C-alpha cells in the first residue's frame, strides 16, 4: 500500500486517526457493566465450592435468609423447578448452572444470594451452610484416561470413561511411511499449560426483567451479544423468554481476549433471579472468582514429531495431543472444529505430509478451552511447530534461520494448499524473516553469542516465523451452535451527509468506533470524524457473531466496505439524476461522482445524500441506506517473523529479554497507530505465558494461584521494549486487502522467547523447556548441568 488514498481530513485507511472512544475513557466516563445502576437493583453474590469434587449432602439457607436485606438464596433445586439447572455449552456439551448433588471443580457455583447491596450479599454467602462429602479429584488427564479411572460425568447416561472426543486430520498412513523413510526424525513433548485471559475488568451482568412487558434486558460483559440472545432464547424459551423479548446490551468492555465469549453460570443465575424476583439483579465477579472459575485457555499436552532429509528439507509432521477440558468442554470453537484451527500446525513451511490427532478428556478442573487472544488453538499449533523446527535445526547443526528460510512456502506458491487442508491466501515469509534479521543484526548477534559462550556467558537468540489463521469464517464450514459465522454492517447516510453505522461485532478495546469509520470514510469520502459507529445492542445492531478470533476486520470490516459500495451504487443513480447524465458516464473518486471528461461537473456525496431525502429521482426509493451481511470466501492468513534475544544470569537463572523484534504482516492496514498498539499488547500477552503465567493445581484439585497475589501478570518492569515493523501482503479475497492482526503477536511471541532461552542453554544439552520459563526453572537446569553454584 502506497500511503493513504484519502486526505487527513477525510481520514480513511492508512491514517493514524486518534481514537474517538478515548474522549470518554480518559475522563472516567466509559460505561462498563458494573457502572450500570437501575432503580431497585439488587446484588448477587455466589457461594462456591471449596472442593474440586464432592457430593453435596445438604444446603441450609436459613441463616442467610434471616439476614436483613437478603431477598433470596438460589440453589440448584430452585433452578431445577424451572428446568434451568443445566445449560448447553457452546461446544454442545452440558454444564451445570447450579448443582443439585455434585460439584465438579473448586470454586464451582453452589448457590447464589440476592440482597440489597453487595455487602449484604457477601454476608449472605458467608451464612449459607453447605455440607459436602469430598471425593478424590481427578486432576491429571493422563490419569483420567486410565481404564480403571472413575467416571466423572455420571450425569451422562451410559458414559463409561472420561473421554470427550477424538479428532484427527491428515493422512496417517502416508505420514507413517514418510517418517520411516526419513533421514532424520526429531520428537519433543510440548506442554502449553492452563492460563487465564485475566482482562482487567472481570465478568458480570445486570439482568432486568420487566414483568409487565415480559421483556428481559441484560447488560453483560459479552463479546458476542447477538449469539447470546439466541442462545438464551433457545435455553430459556420454555420459561417464556422469547427472542424478540430479549435485549442484550454489551456496554464498554474492559478487555475480552476470548474470556467473554462463553456463557457463565453467573449470568444465567442473575437472569433467572431477575425473572423470579421481578427486580434488576447485578452480578459482578471478583478477581478470585474470575481466575478460579471462568474459562481457562490452552492446557494441551502435545507429542510433536518432525521428519526431514539430511539436508534439512522438512518432509512430514505428526502431532498427537491430549487436551484437558476440565469438567465440561466449554470451548467456544466453531462446531466443526473441536480442536479449533489446530490444523494450522504445518505453519509457514512446505511440509507435504502431515497427520495430527487429538483426544480430549474430562478432569475435575474448571471448564473451558477458550481461544485466548488466538483464533481457536492457533497458539498451541504455532508453539508446537516453531519449537520442533528449532529442535530439528539443533539436531542437524543448522542455523534455525537458514532451516526456516529453506523450508518456507515461497511467495509465488500462493494460494497454497496445506497438507491439512487450508488454502493460504497470500504470504511472503522470506521477506519478513529477512527484514527481522536485518533489523536485529542477526549475524552480529550470532558472532557475539559465540564469543560469549567461549567466556561462559549465556545468551540466546530465538526465532518464530509463524502463520496465523483468522476471520472465522466461511459459512460452508463455520458455525457456532448452528449459527453461521458471517458478520454485518447497517449503514445510514443522513440528509446532511453525515453517517451512522451499526455492526454485529463488539469492541473490547480494539477501537472499532474509529477504525470502522475509517473504512467507511475510505469508501465514501465522508470524513471519519462524521461517522458514528455503534455496536453491542441487539435491539438496534444487525445480527453478527461478535468480536473474537481476530474476526472483526475480516468479516465486519468487509461488510462495511460492501455496505458502502451498495450506498455508492445508489448514490450513482441520484448523481446521474442531479447531473442529468447517464450512470455509465459517471466516475467515482473519493467523495464524489463526476462526469467522465468533465471533472467540473460533479456532485459530492454530501450533495447526493441531501438529494436522497429532498430531490430523489421519481421511481427510485428515497433515502440512502444499505445493509450487508458478509460471508467470507476464505479465512485470512496473517503472518510474522519474530526474533528475541535473551541474556541469562548463569548464577541465578534470571532471564533478561535484551531485544525483541516483531515483523508483522496483516495485509492492508486501516489505522497504523491502532495496529501497532495491538501488536504491543499481543506481544505482552505472549510474554506472559512464556515467562510468568500458569494456573497451578495440586493433586486435590486446589488452585494454588487464584488471585493476582500469585498469578503474575507482567507489569511495565517485566515487559521489554518491543520493536515493531511490518511488511504488507494484501489478502487477495478481502474487499480491503486486510487480514486481522491482534492475535498474531500472542501466538507468535511465546515460541520466540522459549526458543531464545533454549538456544542460550543448548550447548549444555538442553533441547526443550516448557513454558512458563521462570528463573527458577532455568536455575534448576543450570544446577543440574553444574553451571550455577
Amino acid at each position, binding site marked *: 500500500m502506497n500511503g493513504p488514498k484519502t486526505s487527513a481530513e477525510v481520514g480513511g485507511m492508512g491514517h493514524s486517526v*486518534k481514537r474517538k*472512544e478515548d474522549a470518554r475513557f*480518559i475522563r*472516567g466516563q466509559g460505561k462498563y457493566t458494573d457502572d450500570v445502576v437501575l432503580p431497585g437493583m439488587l446484588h448477587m453474590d455466589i457461594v462456591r465450592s471449596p472442593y474440586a469434587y464432592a457430593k453435596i449432602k445438604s444446603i441450609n439457607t436459613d441463616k442467610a435468609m434471616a439476614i436483613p436485606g437478603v431477598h433470596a438464596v438460589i440453589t440448584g433445586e430452585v433452578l431445577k423447578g424451572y428446568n434451568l439447572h443445566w445449560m448447553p455449552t457452546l461446544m454442545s456439551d452440558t454444564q451445570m448452572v447450579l448443582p443439585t448433588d455434585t460439584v465438579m471443580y473448586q470454586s464451582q457455583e453452589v448457590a447464589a444470594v440476592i440482597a440489597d447491596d453487595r*455487602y449484604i450479599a457477601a454476608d449472605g454467602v458467608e451464612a449459607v451452610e453447605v455440607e459436602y462429602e469430598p471425593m478424590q479429584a481427578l486432576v491429571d488427564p493422563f490419569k483420567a484416561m486410565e481404564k480403571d479411572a472413575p467416571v466423572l460425568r455420571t450425569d451422562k447416561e451410559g458414559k463409561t470413561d472420561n473421554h470427550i472426543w477424538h479428532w484427527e486430520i491428515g493422512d496417517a498412513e502416508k505420514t507413517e511411511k514418510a517418517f520411516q523413510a526419513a533421514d532424520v526424525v526429531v520428537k519433543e513433548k510440548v506442554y502449553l499449560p492452563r492460563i487465564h485471559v485475566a482482562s*482487567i475488568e*472481570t465478568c458480570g451482568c445486570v439482568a432486568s426483567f420487566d414483568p409487565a412487558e415480559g421483556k428481559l434486558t441484560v447488560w453483560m460483559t459479552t463479546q458476542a451479544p447477538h449469539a447470546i440472545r439466541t442462545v438464551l432464547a433457545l435455553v430459556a424459551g420454555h420459561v417464556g423468554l422469547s427472542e424478540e423479548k430479549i435485549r442484550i446490551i454489551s456496554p464498554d468492555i474492559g*478487555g475480552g481476549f476470548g474470556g467473554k465469549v462463553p456463557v457463565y453460570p453467573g449470568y444465567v443465575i442473575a437472569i433467572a433471579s431477575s425473572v423470579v424476583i421481578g427486580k434488576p439483579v447485578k452480578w459482578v465477579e471478583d478477581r478470585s472468582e474470575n481466575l478460579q472459575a471462568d474459562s481457562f485457555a490452552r492446557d494441551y499436552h502435545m507429542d510433536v514429531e518432525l521428519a526431514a532429509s539430511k539436508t534439512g528439507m522438512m518432509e512430514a509432521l505428526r502431532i498427537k495431543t491430549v487436551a484437558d477440558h476440565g469438567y465440561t468442554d466449554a470451548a467456544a470453537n466453531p462446531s466443526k472444529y473441536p480442536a479449533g484451527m489446530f490444523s494450522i500446525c504445518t505453519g509457514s513451511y512446505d511440509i507435504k505430509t502431515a497427520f495430527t490427532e487429538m483426544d480430549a478428556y474430562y478432569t475435575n478442573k474448571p471448564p473451558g478451552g477458550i481461544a485466548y487472544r488466538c483464533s481457536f488453538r492457533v497458539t498451541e499449533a504455532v508453539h508446537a511447530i516453531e519449537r520442533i523446527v528449532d529442535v530439528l535445526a539443533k539436531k542437524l547443526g543448522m542455523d534455525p534461520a537458514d532451516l526456516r528460510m529453506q523450508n518456507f512456502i515461497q511467495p509465488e506458491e500462493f494460494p497454497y494448499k496445506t497438507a491439512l487442508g487450508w488454502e493460504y491466501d497470500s504470504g511472503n515469509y522470506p521477506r519478513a524473516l529477512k527484514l527481522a534479521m536485518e533489523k536485529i543484526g542477526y549475524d552480529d548477534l550470532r558472532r557475539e553469542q559465540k564469543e560469549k559462550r567461549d567466556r561462559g556467558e549465556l545468551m540466546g537468540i530465538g526465532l518464530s516465523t509463524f502463520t496465523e489463521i483468522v476471520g472465522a469464517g466461511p459459512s460452508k464450514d463455520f458455525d457456532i451452535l448452528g449459527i453461521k459465522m458471517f458478520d454485518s454492517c447497517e449503514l445510514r447516510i443522513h440528509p446532511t451527509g453525515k453517517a451512522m453505522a451499526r455492526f454485529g461485532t463488539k469492541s473490547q478495546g480494539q477501537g472499532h468506533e474509529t477504525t470502522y469509520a475509517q473504512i467507511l470514510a475510505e469508501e465514501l469520502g465522508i470524513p471519519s470524524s462524521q461517522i458514528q459507529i455503534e455496536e453491542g445492542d441487539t435491539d438496534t445492531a444487525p445480527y453478527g457473531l461478535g468480536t473474537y478470533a481476530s474476526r472483526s476486520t475480516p468479516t465486519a470490516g468487509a461488510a462495511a466496505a460492501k455496505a458502502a459500495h451498495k450506498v455508492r451504487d445508489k448514490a450513482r443513480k441520484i448523481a446521474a439524476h442531479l447531473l442529468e447524465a447517464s450512470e455509465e458516464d459517471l466516475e467515482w473518486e473519493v467523495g464524489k461522482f463526476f462526469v467522465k471528461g468533465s471533472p467540473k461537473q460533479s456532485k459530492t456525496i454530501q450533495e447526493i445524500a441531501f438529494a436522497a431525502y429532498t430531490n430523489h429521482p421519481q421511481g427510485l426509493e428515497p433515502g440512502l441506506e444499505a445493509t450487508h451481511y458478509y460471508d467470507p470466501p476464505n479465512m485470512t492468513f496473517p503472518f510474522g517473523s519474530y526474533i528475541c534475544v535473551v541474556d541469562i544470569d548463569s548464577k541465578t537463572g534470571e532471564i533478561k529479554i535484551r531485544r525483541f523484534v516483531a515483523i508483522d504482516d496483516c495485509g492492508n492496514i486501516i489505522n497504523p497507530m491502532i495496529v501497532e498498539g495491538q501488536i*504491543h499488547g499481543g506481544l505482552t500477552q505472549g510474554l506472559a505465558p512464556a515467562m510468568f503465567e500458569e494456573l497451578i493445581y495440586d493433586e486435590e484439585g486446589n488452585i494454588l494461584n487464584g488471585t493476582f497475589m500469585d498469578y503474575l501478570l507482567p507489569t*511495565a518492569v517485566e515487559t521489554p521494549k518491543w520493536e515493531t515493523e511490518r511488511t504488507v501482503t494484501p489478502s487477495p479475497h478481502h474487499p480491503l486487502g486486510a487480514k486481522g492482526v491482534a492475535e498474531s503477536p500472542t501466538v507468535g511471541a511465546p515460541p520466540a522467547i522459549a526458543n531464545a532461552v533454549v538456544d542460550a542453554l543448548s550447548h549444555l544439552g538442553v533441547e526443550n523447556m516448557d513454558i512458563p520459563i521462570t528463573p527458577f526453572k532455568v536455575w534448576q537446569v543450570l544446577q543440574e548441568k553444574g553451571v550455577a553454584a
Partner: protein
Amino acid sequence: MSKHTVTIELNGSSITREVDSRLLLVHFLREELEMTGTHIGCDTSHCGACTVLIDGRSVKSCTLFTMQANGKSLTTIEGMETEGKLHPLQEGFHEEHGLQCGFCTSGMIMRAAELLEKNPNPNEEEIRWGISGNLCRCTGYVNIIKAVQYAAEKMQKEAA
C-alpha cells in the same frame, strides 16, 4: 452496622456523608457518589485500576475504608479535567494511544499524576517502575510510557 460521619475534600469540594464502617472507599465513590470513573480490577490492591489521590499520594481505593479518607483531600479521575481543560496526562493518553479498553486508564492516570508531581522529568526506567503497581492487559505499556512522557514535557513547558 455502625455509621460514621465522613467529610472529604473531593475534587475541590467538601462533602459530608454517613457511611458504614466497613464501606470501602472505591464503593463509596462508585456506588454512594455514582462516580464510576474509578474502577475495580482485583480487590487485592495489585492491579491499580482503583487508584486515586489522597492528599496527593496515589492509593488503591479498593483496600481502604472510606473512613480512612476522613478529613483528607481526595482526587479522582473526575477531578482531573479543570475548567474544560484536560490534564496533560489525559491529553497524553489520547495523543500517544496510551489506552485501548480504557479500564486501567483512570488508575494509570492517577498514579502517573503522583509520579510526575514527585519527579517532573522521569526517564523511561523510572516511569516503568513508577507505574509497576498498575496492570494493563491491552497496551504492553509502550504507549502508556509515551503518554506519561508527553505529559511530563507539556507540564514542564507550562511550568517554565
